[in-house]
Structure formats: structure tokens, C-alpha cells
């Protein structure tokens, strides 16, 4: 679609945004929504660190849409040839190279450079290159510009409230250009309150060598029949305003121009003060604000006495144009309802949550474990067992209880390569899989037959004791049901070959717990089962389980009855074994990796093959 040279932007203009500037992009789309644009003004995003591309999710009114992300401007342009504006948010370091790259792309017509601090020599090269190619640069060191009611560059115009308060969502008759981005926004507000509002506003940036000049934009406005009057804000330093003076004298600018050059204070100061903009420094007497304001007045521009009268001058010119019938006020468009961000109103609206969390809060400066700041946990060198108490039970466990948990973790950390957990982890590691897969495959074997009998044993013994069964009644009941008692029995260990782990924790509990009724009960049960077979001992799972019941009893009323039964019910005790054994399984994984172990294949001679005869199954080959 070809456009006249004076028209950089229309309601159809689409852009590519360089760097993922989420706020600026959302503000552009909010503006589009308020202006009732058909298509979003951002066609694509360039994110050099997203080598594979991707999508960025944004609001389009109340809906959400996806904007594609590309790693280079070239790729984005190839896919979106309709986007002829690049809004370059690259840093001052890379603004030059990325802008040069964009200027070389045939479909890009305008490059906006936001970065402040682009070296002057590079800025000159950019400006000259754009001029040679017949392209436009806005910036560096700018917020951009805006076609009222049509297209907004990046953060120009601020929030959507300000857009509407300054009438930027609909088109007026005033063309505005200044160096300063902040002051351009202020000027849009002044213009709206003293005329029918802005047609288009451009901030060329405060550097010494902006890519496009005040005059270039004024000449575009002069050529654009929709712009009826020009407003300009100049600045002390440089001689750019004299080019405007000449254009006025040569009748290249014929539309009424209101202009004010700021920095009148500079010549009243002794010594040299660098103002906020790099270019704002008068090197010669003709670069002062006074000299420039005088020359502009003499050339026929409307120059106020001070910035205070700026709006008044605009009003005078506007009303004259209305009186002459040159400006006919346009009807005000209807503003669509503006969606409100949840974040902005989160103090006044309520919405029920989908998730509840009662153990850790990470919404503040640091995570809280059941309310205890992480820094305190570290500061007091909190024992791991106590930490587990905070996160599993939301309780401050007494020292002996924390110590018991740590002891269990030590005792269960590993039990060699042959048990099913480690075995699976090893086989998985040798199949070339990753750490997570290997450990997960090991953990998945934990259950009633391996390691996971802790909860089951605790449940069975506490149930029996509560129902008042004697150990013998309990054993008989289980026999009748045909169920093995969890926590009793071991493949290898026996009464004559006791499990050292069980010995150790029994000893610990006898010393540190106030009483051990569950252990005592279990040992009575063991006496009975041992009469049946020598290996039907209280095994390590069983001991851990029943002793945890004793631990809770020894904590006084720290655990309520309901909490005690929930801890047994919800398999929390199996978590102790799982946590401990994970240490060993990670070890086995690393061990196999270090050894560069090859794929494991079980020897065939270790398998009994016993297949049915197909004929028996009814096949007749």
C-alpha cells in the first residue's frame, strides 16, 4: 500500500517491536482498542535471545491474543511485510547495529530508536543512511510519537487514562513536534485543552544529531491536508530552529506555526550548565533561546512571551482558523469500555482463589516456612528434622523428635544396589536416561513390599491397639484375613541375624522418648510371629512406623488425635523412607554415570522360559 511521503502512520500502520517490552506493547494494544483499530499495531516482536522464536500473550480489549516472536528483525519482516515501522528498544550499545539492519530491510520504512546514549558519530551515520535510502528515523533518545486515534509508538502518551484525558484517542488538527518526550506529552494535554486536539505528535529526541529534525516533521505537517496548524517546542543549543526560520521566510511553511524555544535561562547563568538533554547547550550567541525566539517571531511564527502563554497562543491560532472556516470540528467518536487490569483494582474487587497453601508463603521478600523466614532458618542453623516438622506438620518439633527424623533419614539413605529402588535407578541410568527418570523409576517401586510399609505398619498397629486387641488376637485376626502384617518379616534378617538399623532406633527411642507403647506392642507381636518363622521379625519399616506413633505420643499434646490419624492415613510416614532413600538413589545414578556403565540386559540363562502351547490356546498353524 503506497502512502504519501508526508504520512508516516495511519490507522492501518503495523509495527515490529525490537526487544520484549511488555508494558509498552500492552499500552500500544490498549490504545488500538480505544481507537477501535481493526488490527493490532504490533505485528511481531523481535527478541534476540529467543533463538527459536515463540509467542507473547497480550490483551486485545478483554480477550487475549498471541503476537509472534522472532529472533531477528529480518525474520520478523519476512513474515510480516505489512509492518513498515520498527520500534527499536535495543540498548545504546546495540541500537546502532540493530537500526542499521532494519534500515536495510526493504519493507521497513520508519525506524524509531528509543535508546539514550547512542554515540553522536553513530547517530550521524544512521541519519545519513536513512536519508540516502529515503527512510525515516525518529530518535535516538526519544519516547517516539503518536498519530492521534491511529498509531502510537511504544510508551508515548503514557497510560490509557491519559490518552483519553488528552484526547489522543481521536484525531484533531494540530501537528506537533519537539525534542523532549516528556514535554511532548505535556504539550498534547495543552493542545487538547486549547484546540480540537492533536493530529500527530513527534518527539525527535534530545541528542545533538537526531535522525529526523524538527523541520522535517513540520514540512510533513505542512504537506498533510489534515493538519491545519503547527506547534513546535524548540530548545537552547544548536541551530535547527534557524532552518525553521528560513522555511518560514521561503514560504515552505505557510500554515500557522506556534513555537517556543525553551532554555531562556541559559544565557543568564554564569559558566556552562549541561541541561537534561545532550544537545541543550548553547555554544554560540545565536544558539540561545532568546535569539531563536526572536528570529522565529521576526519570521512570522507565533511566539509566546513565556511557556505560561503557550496554550493561549495555540488557542488564539485555533479560534482564528475556526472563524475562517478552515477547521471544522469533527464529531467525537464513542469510546469503547476500557478493560481494567485485575492488578489495578485488586484492592477493590474480590475473586475466589483456586489454590490454597498453608505451609510456604513466597509473596514477600523471602519465603516463609510455616511463617518462619528462610533467613532465620539459616541464621539459627535449624536442624533438618525441625525444618521437616515446619513443612510437613506445620509444627515446631522438640529436639528429640527432629533428631529421630534425621536418624531415620540416615538409616534409610541407602541399602545397596540389589533392593528394588536402587536396582531400578541403576537399570534406568544404564539405559542412558537422565537423573530425574532414574530416581523416579526407583521411587516408583516404593510400596507395601519395599520401603513403603512404614505407613502400613503404623496403621495396622495403631488400629489394633486402639481396638484393644491383644497381640495374639491381632495376629490371629490377620491370619484369618489372610493378610501379612506390614512391618513384620524380612527377606534376609532374622532373630539370629538382627537388623542393626532396628536395633539402633529402638535404642534411641528407649533413651529419648517418654514412653514407647506402640513399640512394646509391636515387640509382643514379634514374639508371636517369631514362633512361626525365624525371619518374622519387626523390620525396619515397621520399627520406623511404630516409633513415629510413639514419637507423637511423646510430644504431649503437640499433635491432636485427628492429626495423628491423618499422618498415618496420608502416607506421610512413607515420605520419611522416600526422602532418605532418594539420597542413595541419586548416588547410584551418579555412580553408574561415572562408571560409564553400558546398557543392562538381564542374562537369558537367569530366566525361566515357560510358555503355553499355542495349540492349547486354540491356534492351528
Amino acid at each position: 500500500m503506497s502512502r504519501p511521503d508526508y504520512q508516516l502512520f495511519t490507522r492501518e500502520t503495523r509495527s515490529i517491536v525490537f526487544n520484549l517490552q511488555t508494558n509498552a506493547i500492552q499500552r500500544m494494544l490498549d490504545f488500538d482498542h480505544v481507537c477501535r483499530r481493526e488490527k493490532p499495531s504490533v505485528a511481531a516482536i523481535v527478541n534476540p535471545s529467543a533463538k527459536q522464536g515463540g509467542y507473547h500473550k497480550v490483551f486485545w480489549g478483554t480477550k487475549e491474543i498471541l503476537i509472534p516472536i522472532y529472533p531477528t528483525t529480518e525474520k520478523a519482516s519476512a513474515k510480516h511485510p505489512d509492518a513498515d515501522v520498527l520500534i527499536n528498544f535495543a540498548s545504546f550499545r546495540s541500537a546502532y547495529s540493530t537500526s542499521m539492519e532494519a534500515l536495510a530491510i526493504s519493507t521497513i520504512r520508519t525506524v524509531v530508536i528509543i535508546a539514550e546514549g547512542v554515540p553522536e558519530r553513530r547517530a550521524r551515520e544512521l541519519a545519513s543512511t536513512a536519508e540516502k535510502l529515503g527512510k525515516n528515523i525518529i530518535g535516538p533518545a526519544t519516547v517516539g510519537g503518536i498519530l492521534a486515534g491511529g498509531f502510537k509508538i511504544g510508551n508515548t502518551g503514557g497510560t490509557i487514562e491519559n490518552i483519553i484525558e488528552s484526547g489522543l484517542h481521536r484525531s484533531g488538527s494540530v501537528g506537533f513536534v519537539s525534542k523532549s518526550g516528556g514535554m511532548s506529552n505535556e504539550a498534547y494535554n495543552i493542545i487538547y485543552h486549547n484546540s480540537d486536539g492533536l493530529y500527530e505528535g513527534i518527539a525527535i529526541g534530545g541528542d545533538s544529531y537526531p535522525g529526523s529534525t524538527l523541520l522535517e516533521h513540520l514540512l510533513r505537517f505542512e504537506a498533510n491536508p489534515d493538519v491545519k496548524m503547527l506547534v513546535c517546542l524548540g530548545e537552547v543549543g544548536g541551530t535547527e530552529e534557524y532552518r525553521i526560520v528560513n522555511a518560514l521566510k521561503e514560504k515552505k511553511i505557510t500554515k500557522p506555526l506556534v513555537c517556543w524555544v525553551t532554555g531562556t535561562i541559559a544565557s543568564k547563568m554564569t559558566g556552562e550548565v549541561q541541561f537534561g538533554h545532550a544537545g541543550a547547550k548553547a555554544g554560540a550567541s545565536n544558539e540561545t533561546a532568546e535569539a531563536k525566539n526572536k528570529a522565529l517571531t521576526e519570521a512570522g511564527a507565533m511566539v509566546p512571551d513565556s511557556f505560561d502563554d503557550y496554550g493561549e497562543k495555540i488557542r488564539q491560532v485555533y479560534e482564528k482558523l475556526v472563524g475562517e472556516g478552515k477547521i471544522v470540528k469533527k464529531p467525537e467518536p464513542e469510546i469503547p469500555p476500557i478493560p481494567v487490569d485485575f492488578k489495578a483494582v485488586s484492592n477493590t474487587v474480590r475473586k475466589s482463589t483456586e489454590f490454597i497453601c498453608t505451609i510456604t508463603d513466597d509473596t514477600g521478600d523471602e519465603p516463609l516456612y510455616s511463617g518462619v523466614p528462610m533467613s532465620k532458618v539459616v541464621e539459627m542453623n535449624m536442624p533438618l528434622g525441625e525444618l521437616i516438622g515446619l513443612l510437613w506438620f506445620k509444627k515446631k518439633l522438640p529436639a528429640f523428635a527432629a533428631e529421630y527424623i534425621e536418624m531415620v533419614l540416615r538409616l534409610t539413605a541407602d541399602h545397596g544396589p540389589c533392593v528394588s529402588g536402587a536396582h531400578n535407578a541403576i537399570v534406568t541410568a544404564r539405559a542412558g536416561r537422565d537423573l530425574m527418570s532414574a530416581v523416579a523409576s526407583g521411587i516408583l517401586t516404593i510400596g507395601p513390599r519395599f520401603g513403603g510399609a512404614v505407613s502400613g505398619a503404623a496403621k495396622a498397629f495403631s488400629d489394633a491397639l486402639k481396638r484393644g486387641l491383644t497381640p495374639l488376637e491381632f495376629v490371629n485376626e490377620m491370619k484369618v484375613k489372610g493378610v501379612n502384617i506390614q512391618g513384620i518379616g524380612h527377606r534376609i534378617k532374622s532373630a539370629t541375624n538382627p537388623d542393626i538399623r532396628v536395633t539402633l532406633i529402638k535404642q534411641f527411642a528407649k533413651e529419648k522418648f517418654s514412653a514407647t507403647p506402640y513399640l512394646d506392642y509391636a515387640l509382643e507381636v514379634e514374639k508371636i510371629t517369631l514362633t512361626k518363622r525365624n525371619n518374622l521379625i519387626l523390620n525396619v519399616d515397621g520399627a520406623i512406623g511404630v516409633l513415629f506413633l510413639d514419637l507423637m505420643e511423646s510430644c504431649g499434646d503437640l499433635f491432636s488425635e485427628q492429626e495423628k490419624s491423618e499422618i498415618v492415613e496420608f502416607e506421610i510416614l512413607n515420605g520419611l523412607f522416600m526422602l532418605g532413600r532418594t539420597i542413595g538413589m541419586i548416588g547410584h545414578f551418579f555412580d553408574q554415570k561415572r562408571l560409564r556403565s553400558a546398557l543392562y540386559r538381564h542374562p537369558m540363562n537367569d530366566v525361566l522360559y515357560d510358555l503355553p502351547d499355542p495349540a492349547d490356546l486354540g491356534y492351528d498353524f
Partner: protein
Amino acid sequence: MAVRGIREYDGKMLMSSLMGRFSNNTISVRGDFALIDPTTDMDSLPQSMPWLLTDKLVAKPDMLFGKRGKNNLLKLNATWEEAKAWIQEKMTVDTTLSGVTGKLTHFLVEPFIPHDKEYYIAMRSFRNEDTLYFSTEGGINVEENWDKVKEIHVPVMRDGNILDAGNFDVTRELPLEGSELSAVASFVNALYRFYADQGFSYLEINPFAIKDNVVIPLDLVAKIDDTAAFENLDSWGRSLEFPSGFGKTPTKEEAFIKELDSKTGASLKLTVLNPDGHIWPMIAGGGASVIYADTVADLGYMNELGMYGEYSGDPNEELTYQYACTVIDLMTRKSDVRGKALLIGGGIANFTDVAKTFTGIIRAIEKYQDALRTAKVKIFVRRGGPNYKVGLDKMRALGGKLGIPIEVYGPETHMTRIVPMAIDYIKA
């Protein structure tokens, strides 16, 4: 971030260390220069610079001002002892230059080299070109003989391509002949490459002499675009300094803000104009800050303006706090019968979060509340932009809480309207 003057010493040292690189080692520049400041141990200096004791010397102040000969601030053909005594004396007495009085702090000492012919070379950057100015009649009278200066134009683009300084050759432009031409042309070519590569925007050597392909820059003035720092870290290093002009030694507070400014992507600026002033503008935005200062001056109260400054580019809360503390501390150090006005002004921000920056300013006001009361400070606020309503409400609430008078306005009020209000207050 702008074009700034550098010391003659730094300019000459840069030239000396880089000229070989830019001339394929055909040209060298003498590197025997010493910079002396009040911290220099002049007695031990000759140990590292033995030429100080063997050569006849030149000593002159190195503080960004020119016309040192005409101001009688040039010590020529001196021994080290003579130069030392002269410098020590100049460091202790007040010197007045163009109406500004202050102490001289930095001096350049170099060998005094008798020479025959004095050349003039200057380079200046413009939007579309760099202009070189060359004359065979350099020296203090070059301005009187300006019609003899040859201008050479080096465009940014030539034949549709960006001109590489390495391909620029000045030989055919110079009004010289024979071996003199080839020696001077080699130097000027190398100097231009140096100029273009090292971020200069102005460089004047008046005069320079040349002897057996060794260049002696006798007097040098240079301005550098400090935004080119990231391209020249290896050559500028951390030592290249951008001093303030003579008599403009930054105050402790100015130096502190400069330091903060250099560490952030945001912008913070402070120049103290009159410590006894009654109007202190703390303004957001490079453009708006100038307009506030203009308005104070336009209304006839330039002499009451305490400072020029600005903060912009969405500084974080801590930076704004530090900035506000510095300003409030400065304005409340002295108090008299009249009240003072603190202007917390700005236009309508595009993206700076007004509430957030105000949080930093509010913390500073709370910290200095007693000082503000003692100095009878009234605060005038005018601001717009993202989250401005929250910011303005916080300011209003602060006034009530601290009992410090605060008037608060938003975008509905003309930006500089608070200036005449402040003037009325300090007049009363």
C-alpha cells in the same frame, strides 16, 4: 551524557599512545607530559620522569580554558625547580578569569622544544560532515589570519556509503609540497582516523611542529562525546576524566549526584546555582526542568534559584530518595526570616511511575521534616503520568501527617503554575 571537554594532558597522552596505531607506525607523538594536581608528590616525580630534570620545561594550567599566554599563565623555558615553584605559587593564590575567581588546581608540564614552523589543525563535527581546518601559519595569531586557513570537508557519506576514516586522504588538499607535504599529510590523515575512532567532536592543535616524523603538539583543546565510552574502553580506560570548567569545581553534592547518575540508566542531574536561594526546583524530566528554571528567571527571580537539576528515565525509589535527600539537605542548611519553596514539578510522564518515584521523595521529606520546618519550607507539587493520582494522594496525606504545608496539583493545572505560587510564598 553529552559532549564534554577533556584535559590537554589526556588529549596529548591519548594521541601519543594511539598515533602509531592510526599511522601504521609512520608517525609518533612525544609522550613526555606530566599532569600535576594538589595530590601530586612533586619531589618524587622526576624518579619516574627523568626528563623533568634534563629538559627545559613548559608549565601551564590544564583546566579547559584557553588564552593562557594572554592571561600570563604560561611558564616557558623553565627548569624543574622554576616550574615547581611557579606551580606551587599559582596553586595558592586566587586567579580571576572572565569574571570567575578560583584556585588553579591542575597543571601540565612538558619539555620546552624550540621549533621552526608552527602549523594549525582543527577538526569539528557537524550533522553531515566533519570539517578540518589547516594552516601553515599556526600560533596565537591564527584567528587574525583566518583567511589563510584551508577548510577540508569530510562528509559522513561519500558515493552512497558511510565514509571510512581509514580511507580518507588529505594529501591533495594541503597547500604544501615535497617531503613536508608527505610528513604533514601522514600526520593529518592519522589524526583524523584518531579523531573519528576515539569519539571526538572537536579537536584543535595550535600549533604543532613536526621533526623527523615526530609530531610535537604544543597546545591542544579537545571535546569528546562521552556516550562513545563503551566503544573505547580499551583506550580511554577508567582514567579519562571529564572535569568541570575553571571555578566550577563540583561541590560534594554535585559530585555525589554525578556518581549516582553514572551508575544508572536513569538520569540524575544537579548544579548548585545559589546556596542562599529560596526557590529549589526538583523537577522530573530533561525538558520540563529547563522550562521550570526558565519560568523562575522570566518572572524575575533568577537570583533566588538555588539549583538546576532533573531526574528522569524512571529512576528507582532508592535513587529518587538519594536525590531528594541531597536537594532537601542543601536547601535547608541555612534559614532566614523568609520561607523557602521546594518545587516538586514535572510534566505528564510517559512511563515513569509517579507513585513510585514519589515514594522515594516522601521518604526523604520524612527524614528531613524537622529541617524543612525550621527553614520554613513550603512544598509545591505538580505532576501527571502513570499512577499519578496515587502519587498525588500520598503527597497530600504527607502534608497532613507532618504538618508541613504542601500544595498538590495534577495535569489539570498548567505545568508551571506552581512557580508564581512559590514566588508569592517566598516574597511574603
